[in-house]
């Protein structure tokens, strides 16, 4: 299986602001790896170094042992599909046209879509559940529908690595669960930055906890999303429960310091 990602002592800085400070971590091939951490802890930057927007000042990012900077931009885009946080310009594209752009790195010089490309696009549309509004311009869609279009665009390129930056943004609960369920079962290497810690606990195989550009904890949910670590990194109180139905860790956040109301001891 291919798609293993490793960070070896990677530092990323914008001028004098250090976004990632000598971070070493691994995202195993075919597994769902979640990045959690407070705002500004370096989750998005870590993803951006993988799709070429941020460049490490030092250290090496590798894909199956090959340093990322040795791959061409096209080769990189073929292997890595991205659902980024930036909302694309309301350019007048229809949802279908936007999803089809996900095939870019696999097209020839004239960018004509083959039947094989159409097949991949259709598959992505079905997986992301965009079929009902695929002919509409993006500007007429809701935030959640647009998010699913961008998810479909990331899938359309048939990458073996999926980078998801806050993928559940704007999504209703049904579609949040569907998206994470797909990410956990699709067999691709998935690296997702998540704010919903409980969903990270419920779906991810591995968790990397980032704090101010450094790795604070790494491992399976049961050892990384502990009350002590959550208190230290997020300054929140949390109760950890073991879901008897799935055997997985679940979290109740903020339970100790929640406002006590009269009659609700």
């Amino acid at each position, binding site marked *: 299986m291919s798609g293993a990602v490793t960070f070896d002592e990677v530092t990323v800085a914008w001028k004098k602001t250090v976004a990632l400070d000598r971070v070493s971590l691994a995202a195993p091939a075919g597994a769902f790896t979640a990045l959690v951490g407070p705002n500004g802890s370096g989750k998005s930057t870590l993803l*951006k170094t993988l*799709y*070429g*927007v941020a460049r490490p000042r030092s250290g090496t990012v590798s894909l199956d042992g090959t340093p990322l900077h040795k791959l061409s*931009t*096209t080769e*990189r*885009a*073929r292997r*890595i*599909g*991205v659902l*980024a946080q*930036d909302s*694309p*310009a*309301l*350019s*007048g*594209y*229809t*949802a*279908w*046209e936007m999803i089809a*752009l*996900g095939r*870019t*790195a696999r*097209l020839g*010089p*004239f*960018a004509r*879509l083959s039947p094989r490309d*159409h*097949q991949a*696009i*259709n598959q992505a*549309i*079905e*997986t*992301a*559940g965009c*079929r*009902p*509004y*695929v*002919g*509409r*311009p993006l*500007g*007429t869609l809701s935030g959640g529908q647009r998010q*699913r279009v961008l*998810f479909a665009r*990331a899938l359309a*390129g048939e990458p073996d690595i999926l980078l998801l930056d806050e993928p559940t943004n704007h999504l209703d609960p*049904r*579609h949040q669960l*569907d*998206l994470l369920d*797909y990410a956990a079962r699709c067999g691709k290497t998935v690296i997702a930055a998540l704010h919903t810690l409980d969903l990270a606990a419920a779906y991810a195989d591995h968790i990397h906890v980032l704090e101010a550009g450094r790795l604070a904890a790494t491992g399976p949910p049961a050892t990384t999303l502990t009350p002590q670590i959550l208190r230290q990194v997020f300054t929140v109180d949390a109760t950890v429960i073991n879901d008897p139905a799935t055997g997985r860790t679940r979290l109740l956040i903020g339970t100790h310091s929640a406002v006590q109301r009269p009659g609700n001891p």
Partner: protein
Amino acid sequence: MTAGHPDAGRPAPVAPPRGPAAPLHGGLWRRVPLPVLLAAGLLVLAVSAVLAIGVGAVAIPPGEVAGALWRAATGAPQHGPDDFIVVQLRLPRVIEAMTVGAGLAGAGTIVQAIVRNPIADPYVLGLSSGASLGAVTVITTLGIGFAGSLTLPLAAFAGAAGTGILVFLLARTRAGLAAGPLVMTGVAAGSLLSGVTSFLLLRGSADAAQDVMFWLLGSLSGAQWRLAAISGTLTGASLAVLLLRGHRLNILALGDESAAALGMRPGLARAGFFALAALLTGAAVSVAGAIGFIGLVMPNLARMLVGADSRRVIPFGALIGAVILLWADTAARTVLAPSEVPIGILTAFIGVPIFIAAVRTQPGALP
């Protein structure tokens, strides 16, 4: 993610799926195949050209015009003075009008994509101010005939190209050209160059000021075969390159993060497209002066009619730009004949009603 969705059971359309039969929110002719659109556009352009050539001090019926063009194309002997009027006097001007209209529309499509703003046009990047300064410098110092009939076009082209290089050097960063610095530098450079132009105008003679004013508002009265051939070739070649790169323009319009994610180097690509926009703008303003409106409106009009895909907007926008500028120029040389009206005034008179009508009927197609 289809589980539980109320629309999950809807049948999927067969490839190529432009979407199910949902209501169309934008792009009146979005579903019309590009070859059909282009064939129709070329037909309208050809008919417009024949009709426009027939209009003038000596009216020539369309049949005669077509005959004269046919004889010129096949090398058959010419039939009297009408052939001379058609081929030597009016045809170069019509070709220049079509070239300038198509070129400005193409340049506008590029600029709107690379700065991600639908109200940008080639002039936002300072290119026309540079061309104006080049032309005005020559008019007020050396004189219009300094280097023969190509003096003014050459000066204007040099001004546009020089400004393009200057803006590029000032706006570039380590990763190439970013949209924000590009548009800010372009606007600033344009203001500075306009200031210099005004200064030269104030210092120059009244005659020179008259020449300059006419040039600034745009005119094709200096049309000649040599110029038509040069600008036509330059514009045609640039548009062909642009058309082949249309897919990349689509991606650049999404923003730099998306472009990088899809396998492009946005800073580098933007620099290449900027060079192409400078070439197209330089070729257009050097023959016709600073004609406004076409570069701003034609790409938007094209998007409203054929959808947002640059591979459709580029050729279709160029065609409607060519048709509208052709009719604007025909009006420019006839409404107050024998004097000429600056064409920039007429592009607005002809284009604005069409544009407003499109905005009112196709609001969903606007970005």
